[in-house]
């Protein structure tokens, strides 16, 4: 039967189309993408302003095309809600301050399934509350960006002080085997760039992406250089164009990412948190369940996906004998310490994972297998250290040698790890 039928009125917000011209100018997989584009002359004009990390995140979300924000106030991420409330109407979008953290992520998932880009923001305790629905978004493959500004924990902990203690919650907070992308920006400029990248990954791979700034980065203000709106590389989810009756919301595609139709256009489908078949309907077929579970992992692990998702800054790593691994605000302290140590002749480098999950295994292994000692510095008691230890072991297995010693520099007393702390650890 023909699919062309009289349609009920549709008022879908227009999405700016994907723009290959913008993508050619700015490559978000580069560290310091906007600055690199300006240095290379691919970009000659840009906007200068001064922003806080939270404002940069919210602004980037709107400039990347987000048109719905579901939020709930929580220190230190509230400014994201406030920024969205102030500005989202101007972009033709809307927001709701929901009744709780669970509802705020739920509303964002609902909006995204409706066909628009949506996001939510929170901090540790609220992130815990969002976990069930985060798992829903993983299995139902909903494009979504969740901002989690890290403070101290567990429990209420230190609401106003920076922590990096949600690294494992970001990875394993929701139940079940699930893939996840988590990104930790270190500067305000990066808050903007990585938020745009987070939306692009979410859309391209139909997956939730967690942006994981620490409270220090989200609260500080720095000058930023932003490209013109027309120069922002934007990716939108792939939509079906074939016959609606053949549409499979969880069907096979070349890159493992199924097409996602907005509601209302004839591509009627079912979305359920139960294991489902290609049409989205509940299934108990073990073969289909196995395929589904493995595909949602595999889609983030193709060479193209790894290029889009993984991102690591390596600073003075090539001849390093000691490697400091740090991310977010701690990486900034580590950079000062590395420079200070280099000034007195110590061969030390900094490996800064910008994408924490999935971990940039090959880059880490390359350096882990070369150095004599590794220091993981983070504002927790050794969460990412576990991953680095695992990778050091894998690096050693490949080379058939003893794993490099991995030590930790950890702090959970609400104070930051300072350059001096890292320097002393390097000199130890």
């Amino acid at each position, binding site marked *: 039967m023909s699919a062309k039928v009289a349609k009920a009125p549709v008022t879908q917000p227009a999405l700016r189309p994907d723009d290959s011209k913008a993508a050619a100018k700015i490559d978000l997989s580069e560290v310091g993408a906007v600055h690199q584009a*300006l240095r290379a002359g691919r970009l000659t004009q840009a906007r200068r302003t001064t922003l806080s990390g939270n404002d940069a995140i919210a602004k980037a979300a709107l400039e990347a095309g987000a048109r719905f924000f579901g939020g709930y106030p929580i220190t230190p991420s509230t400014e994201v809600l406030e920024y969205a409330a102030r500005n989202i109407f101007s972009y033709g979008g809307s927001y709701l301050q929901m009744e709780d953290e669970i509802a705020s992520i739920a509303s964002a998932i609902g909006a995204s399934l409706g066909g628009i880009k949506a996001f939510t923001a929170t901090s540790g305790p609220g992130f815990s509350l969002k976990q069930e629905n985060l798992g829903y978004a993983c299995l139902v493959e909903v494009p979504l960006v969740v901002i989690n500004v890290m403070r101290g924990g567990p429990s209420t902990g230190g609401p106003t002080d920076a922590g990096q203690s949600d690294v494992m919650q970001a990875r394993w907070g929701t139940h079940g085997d699930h893939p996840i992308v988590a990104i930790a920006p270190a500067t305000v400029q990066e808050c903007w760039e990585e938020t745009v990248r987070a939306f692009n990954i979410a859309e391209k791979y139909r997956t939730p992406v967690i942006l994981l700034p620490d409270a220090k980065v989200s609260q500080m203000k*720095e000058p930023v250089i932003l490209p013109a709106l027309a120069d922002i590389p934007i990716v939108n989810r792939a939509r079906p164009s074939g016959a609606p009756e053949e549409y499979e919301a969880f069907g096979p595609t070349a890159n493992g990412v199924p097409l996602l139709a907005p509601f209302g256009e004839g591509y009627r489908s079912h979305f359920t948190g139960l294991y489902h078949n290609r049409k989205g309907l509940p299934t108990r077929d073990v073969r289909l369940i196995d395929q589904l579970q493995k595909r949602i992992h595999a889609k983030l692990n193709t060479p193209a996906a790894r290029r889009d998702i993984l991102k690591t800054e390596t600073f003075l790593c090539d001849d390093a004998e000691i490697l400091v691994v740090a991310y977010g605000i701690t990486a900034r302290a580590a950079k000062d310490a590395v420079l200070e140590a280099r000034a007195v002749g110590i061969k030390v480098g900094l490996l800064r994972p910008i994408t924490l999950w999935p971990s940039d295994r090959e880059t880490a292994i390359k350096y882990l297998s070369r150095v004599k000692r590794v220091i993981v510095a983070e504002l927790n008691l050794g969460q990412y250290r576990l991953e680095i230890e695992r990778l050091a072991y894998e690096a050693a297995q490949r080379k058939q040698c003893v794993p490099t010693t991995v030590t930790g520099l950890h702090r959970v007393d609400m104070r930051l790890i300072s350059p001096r702390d890292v320097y002393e650890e390097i000199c130890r």
Partner: protein
Amino acid sequence: MNANPICSLEMPDLRRTTMRRNIWCEGCGLGNMQQAISIALMRQLGRRFKVDFMQPAGLEAIKNNIAMVSGIGCTSRMAGHLDANTVHTTHGRSLAFASGLKMARPDLTVVLAAGDGDIFAIGGNHFIHAARRNLDMTLIVYDNRSYGMTGAQASPTSPMGEFGSSAPYGVFEAPFNLVDLAIGAGAGFVAQGAVTTLQEHQDQLEELIAAGLDHKGFSFINVVGTCHTGWGARNKRSEAFRYRQYLQHEVTPVERWRELPPEERAALKPLGIIHSVDRPDLQSSPAYTEIVARGKKAAASLEEPLEDIRLIDLDPMARPPRTSLRFAGSGGQGVITAGEIALSAAVLAGKNGVFTKNYGPEARGGEAYSDVTVSDGEIHFPQSDELDVLVALNQETFDKFRKEVGPSGRILVNSSAVRETYDDPRVITSPIGEILARDVRPPKRDLGINILALALVLDYLGLMSRQAIEAAVMKSVGKKNPALNQKALAAGFAEAERLKAH
């Protein structure tokens, strides 16, 4: 069925043909409820879009416009049965998912099917807020007074004294009065139907759902239902037909119910439209429209002007000198703003900078401070082990932060408020409070003290040009009160001159 238009006497329905079977027990009232929802949707949407649901094209248009959202439980499986845009979400959260969906897509008809445990226990918070928020959506609850799918546990609507698997000796908590709850929470349309054995009740249910769909705003239709295999089996009502016959004795038309004395009312459930107020739903309310317009106007231009930008390659090994400043004072003295302006002045002067504030209770009264680090090159870690400059507007912050200033650092002290400086050799005193009162004469005490101190310290240290400082002030607080801030700037610069001459 609907694929066969020739058989025009056959009523089409919304069943999803690809969904082979449902999981419901034979005889469960959920089938009746699904049928009522199906028919009401076809009828009402057909009318709304002026299409014929008996024709395939018309039915297609109707199906495309429906978004059914559900949570977890027997009832919530209904979403899978309907050939529409359907979302089977997490336990209790369907209303929250639906709220985001409706905000994103006001054009869709959003319908929810849910159970009493799902909506009133785990999802209770979302229910009251959905009622209050009044988005245009229709919630139909199958109230079987128990958790059916998990095996007859008690729910927030289980009658006291009845038995469930989690109430083996009887339910000892009072149930919700759903009608009162919904009205109290602000629902604009509240109705109750029942799945008994009577056709009139089935017809009424259809009418109630249709009226709910027509109502603009949040509508709630409670369906008095059964669960013969679970709750019924534990309460001597395990036979589906008998259980539903028994329901007939529990319900009465709302018109009759209203006439009854209170003690008789409590034992009966009113059927019909119990509450209906005509008012616009959230998205079509004049208040919302006006607020959106206000928001659009206030944030009209969000794209900053473009500039030609040339970046030079920086030496990654460079460790350029930096200056760290702290502005400190009492909560109302604007020291956070001073730090922000100092950052913007640094940027206007072509420098790099980082601003950090202390955040939280201390910033809301009591002591407050903000830090700014300024440099000609990159700034990695935004804090310094030692402060280079402290501006202390009161004694408390002077005492508290003096120790954090390096041996060669400087402390600008407001001598109008700081009486004791412990002969600290790093101290530079200036009667900032008195200068403010004398030269700026603010209408409110301390208004402008931050700007005066900022102009004074930045100019005195020669950290950036006066033009940059002035431009930063005028871009910020100066917009609101140019005259006062100009005076504060001038007073600050004059005092800097005096101190420099010293």
